[in-house]
């Protein structure tokens, strides 16, 4: 499945661009995506901290997604590290 992943906060320091174009065959749920992305990040991002992904939420523009949620058909996701507004 093709995934367009928006990066925010600390994740912006790892990606060369604010959005990643990824392709993960056979994934269907948010949990599948997490596992696939974790493997991808370990392979592509020197200094990648796996704990940051574990503490991060996966979302669309309208809502946070649970681990068992189906991935959106358009493949558009956002990776949200712990927040610090205000």
């Amino acid at each position, binding site marked *: 499945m093709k995934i367009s992943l928006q990066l925010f906060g*600390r994740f912006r320091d790892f990606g060369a661009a604010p959005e990643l174009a990824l392709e993960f065959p056979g994934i269907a749920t948010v949990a599948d995506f997490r596992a696939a992305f974790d493997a991808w990040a370990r392979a592509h991002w020197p200094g990648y901290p796996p704990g940051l992904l574990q503490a991060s939420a996966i979302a669309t523009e309208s809502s946070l997604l649970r681990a068992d949620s189906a991935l959106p058909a358009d493949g558009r996701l956002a990776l949200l590290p*712990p927040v*610090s507004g205000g």
Partner: protein
Amino acid sequence: MHEQPHSDPRIACAVVDIAEARLDVQAALDFVGDDAHGGIDVFIGRVRASSHGRQCVGIHYDMFDALALNVFRATAAAAVERYGPAAKCYVAHAKGRLAVGDLAVVIAFGSPHRDEAFRGCREVIEAVKHQAPIWKQEHFVDGLSEWSEGCSLCGDAHAQAGDAAGHAHAEPAAVRA
């Protein structure tokens, strides 16, 4: 300014790009002002000159605008529902590179009596801080910068990062699918 149209005339929410405009406290007061109200509580968050003992020159706020506006709207609607029906709420947050003294967030909550105004305003700012997809990168006088520790939005891990700062967490806003 990125404003969210809202069907409830008691609520106004906005994301303001500091490159285009600044937060407007008077606009917040004008919005929540109502002859039925005896109290308006306003919270103004501004960039301070130091953080954890280090001198700051500014803060960069990163934001996922669409979802942040959803959180603002859901939180404001919940507070108006709880402290209404006459209550009104205004929520605006800046994004981009802010300097020391710049306003980062303005919350205004108007209601017939002061207790509801205080409670409503507090409830909304706590949700904005702990639930909205906003990230703070502090820039220091020595040229270094750091992303702030924050509050995790993912379920069971929700408390882990924020509790180090010793603050309370409200229940997550109803934006989870």
